[in-house]
């Protein structure tokens, strides 16, 4: 297991370096082309982080390349700084540029973010062109051959090896992050932002990190390649360079870093290979990209791996072994792993409210979605929340979990007001949730979904965990074991490696539950956990939830329309209608309450 894991992380670097060695057998012109390809492979891998994983459109690649190229060349030319030092400086400068771009930029998504990157691109080139004294302006800046430890890399073969070696080095940390927790978090953000946030992923910070890392690597690629061009000018790094680079991950494959890597290597070499068609090349390029988007969405890489991916058999798709023992195993695993200490089942009458909702009101314009709602949820109990459609239940959940802010009122978690606690921090307090429309991260595997549920997702944690995952350390193994245990508890251990998108709806709901329990939370908010699920599966889920509640001591608040399910599951039920609580108490009593019946059925009370 660890050997394949290590291979996964080192493979791209080895591939790039092997390419450069293989190039020694070629003529010098092809060695030059190969160096270009390797450089583009690095760019493509970096773009995989922004474009493939975070699904952001960036048109700033050219500017980052320019920052790297000039950032390394100017110190060497003007200050006699050694090449490797200048390279490090240029890489850091690229990271800084990424930060400057991303901090204001990530407030936006989609076309506005693309526009911000475009602005950055244009302004950088204008500045470079105007600063003639510093950069030589439009006439260009001649660059000497790189000198490392006294050795001058002047021939094509020398340069190819240097380029291959440095590129392999710079790709490595990128791959560690991409294959590790950071990459998975980015893909989670792209899949479902709300769910990602609910499990501790700060979207803006993750996007900023993605931009910083990729920009640093792209700048490094620009700095490595610049001496080979012998002269650089700002217009080579213009908008067209950015747009063409965008094609690398799109055509190569959006599912993995290899897509960007191979996409970059192949697409960059094409103009050299197809030189007789120089006139038509750009047009062919555009046609290729558009055709890929239409006919091979996800790029060639995804197309190829999709053809070879094993489709799960019928036997495997059905529900797994009984959850009964599995939950118990989960708990003991968590004990062994030293996770949050499990509270033994307590006498409920002595418990304090784990969740107190007090006077919460939320309006959308003229519509009062939630109106002065107050109720308490006792620790370690299962509290139901029901009501006709449009009653405001999900809105209330969103307020409790932090995705929306209330206009009035307060939510207290174990006595602490949650007013200033952002949604990303609530998982650490011990609150997790599921969503009305199964919000699994469909492109990630089941086990990866659950790993995110651990909630260890702030930027530094994610980065450190990525390194742990790459090294397959004990900590990484322990986390994985916890995730597998949670999957086992819901009966999905046999689907651990499958993509969450390939699961049936019922299984996706189970997956959400696994994701919600793995952090051993003190309370889970479940939004319609059995909606759209068969009767048998609903029974199975009910069993599971009861066991989790009993044995793990996790409280729950459950929204459901399936009234018999709610009654058989909950200790207490609140009923909402038109934004207000209209009844609360024992399930059997509440269900027969006249107001409740009128809200649901419009029934007029028949006096006894």
């Amino acid at each position: 297991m660890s050997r394949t894991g290590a291979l996964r992380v080192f493979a791209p670097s080895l591939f790039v370096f092997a390419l450069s060695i293989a190039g020694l057998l070629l003529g010098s012109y092809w060695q030059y082309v190969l160096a270009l390809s390797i450089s583009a492979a690095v760019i493509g891998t970096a773009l995989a982080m922004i474009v493939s994983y975070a699904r952001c459109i960036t048109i700033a690649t050219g500017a980052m390349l320019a920052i790297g190229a000039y950032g390394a060349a100017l110190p060497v030319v003007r200050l006699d700084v050694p090449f490797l030092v200048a390279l490090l400086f240029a890489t850091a400068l690229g990271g800084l540029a990424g930060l400057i771009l991303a901090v204001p930029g990530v407030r936006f998504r989609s076309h506005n973010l693309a526009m911000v990157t475009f602005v950055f691109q244009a302004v950088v080139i204008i500045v470079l062109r105007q600063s003639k004294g510093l950069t030589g302006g439009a006439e260009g800046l001649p660059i000497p051959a790189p000198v490392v430890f006294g050795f001058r890399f002047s021939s094509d073969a020398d340069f190819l090896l240097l380029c291959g070696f440095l590129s392999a080095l710079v790709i490595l940390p990128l791959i560690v992050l991409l294959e590790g927790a950071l990459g998975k978090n980015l893909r989670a953000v792209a899949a479902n932002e709300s769910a990602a946030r609910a499990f501790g992923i700060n979207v803006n910070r993750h996007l900023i990190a993605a931009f910083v890392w990729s920009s640093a690597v792209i700048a490094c690629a620009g700095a490595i390649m610049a001496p080979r061009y012998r002269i650089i000018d700002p217009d080579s790094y213009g908008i067209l360079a950015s747009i063409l680079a965008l094609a690398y991950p799109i055509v190569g494959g959006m599912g993995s870093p290899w897509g960007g890597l191979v996409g970059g290597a192949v697409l960059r070499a094409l103009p050299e290979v197809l030189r007789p068609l120089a006139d038509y090349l750009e047009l062919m390029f555009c046609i290729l990209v558009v055709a890929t988007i239409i006919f091979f969405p996800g790029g060639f890489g995804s197309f190829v791996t999709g053809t070879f991916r094993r489709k799960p058999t019928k036997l495997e798709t059905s529900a797994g072994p009984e959850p009964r023992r599995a939950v118990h195993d989960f708990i003991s695993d968590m004990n062994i792993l030293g996770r949050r200490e499990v509270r033994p089942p307590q006498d409920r009458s002595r418990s304090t409210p784990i969740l107190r909702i007090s006077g919460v009101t939320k309006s959308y314009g003229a519509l009062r979605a939630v109106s002065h709602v107050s109720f308490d949820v006792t620790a370690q109990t299962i509290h139901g929340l029901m009501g006709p459609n449009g009653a405001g239940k999900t809105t209330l959940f969103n307020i409790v979990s932090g995705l929306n802010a209330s206009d009035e009122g307060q939510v207290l978690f174990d006595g602490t007001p949650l007013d200033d606690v952002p949604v990303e921090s609530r998982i650490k307090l011990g609150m997790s949730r599921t969503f009305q429309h199964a919000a699994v991260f469909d492109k990630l595997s089941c086990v990866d979904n659950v790993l995110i549920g651990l909630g260890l997702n702030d930027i530094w944690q994610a980065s450190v965990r990525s390194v742990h995952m790459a090294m397959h350390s004990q900590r990484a193994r322990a986390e994985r074991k916890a995730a597998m245990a949670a999957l086992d508890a819901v009966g999905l251990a046999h689907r651990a490696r499958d993509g969450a998108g390939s699961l049936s709806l019922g299984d996706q709901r189970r997956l959400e539950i696994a994701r919600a329990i793995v952090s051993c939370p003190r309370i889970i908010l479940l939004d319609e956990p059995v909606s759209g699920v068969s009767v048998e599966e609903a029974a199975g889920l009910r069993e599971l939830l009861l066991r989790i509640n009993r044995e793990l001591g996790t409280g729950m608040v459950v929204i459901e329309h399936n009234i018999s399910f709610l009654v058989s599951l909950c200790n207490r039920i609140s009923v909402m209608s038109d934004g207000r609580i209209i009844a609360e108490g024992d399930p059997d009593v509440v269900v027969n309450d006249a107001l409740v019946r009128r809200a649901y059925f419009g029934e007029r009370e028949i006096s006894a």
Partner: protein
Amino acid sequence: MLSELLMIVVGGLKMGAIYSLTAIGIVVIHKATRTVNFAHGAFVLCGAYVTYGIVEVLQFGWWAAFVLASLAGGLLAAVVELGILRPIRQADSFAVITATIFIGIGISDIYRLLQNTEILAVRSMIRGAPLFIGDAMITREQIAVVGGAMAVALIGVALFAYAKFGRGMRAMASNPRGAVLCGYSSDAMNALAWFVGGAMAGVAGSFAAPSTGVTAELSVAMVTAGFAAAVIGGFDSLRGALLGGLILGVCETLAAGYVSSAMKNAVSFLLIFIILLWRPQGLFPEAKIRHV
């Protein structure tokens, strides 16, 4: 001093009117189909090229050029929508936006291959003695462009707001399924919206041709300016796009005149950036409440 300012402002308004037309086309497409069309500049180029053909090659009149340029732009846009974008419309905005970026470049490349010269010059729309306001000279062409472009823009805005198909497009944008249930055809509405947007771009190209000439670079320049104008105005507001274009044109020329000529291009970018940061809903936002 004042006359110089006036001349600069009028010069800015002239380009600004062209930007307004372009921006309105972008906003129409966005309002109706929720797509940001980065290929819009290519439609402007198409209109400009057709104008060259009509006015310079065939030597017909300018009215013919306007009509045919708008038809050409509209048809090109409709073809792009029906042929390329409809199949991927189900996908997320990422796919559509990237597709439009590359379609835009592809179309300008096709133009470059078809017409292998650097630039095609188109003669001015109106000749004749210029007008004088004090020391400031205002040419008839400037008046014609500003007046004409604004007239077309206002017609476009009015159509979208009041005419039946305008209502249909707005219905489709806010609730596609509902609109379909009411009898509107989703495909037809989308194609119509793109046609209208493309037609506006085509006319913008007609107005632009004498001032900028017909070149492959026109498409990038116009889509950048159009987008900037749309952002300034508030992306979903037609009125905003109209005013945004004028503001952009005037700011560009003022900056170039009083700060430095290199600033001219930088101005549109900086304006986009500042507006996005300070007032992302634009200067003239259309009230829109989105429920999650």
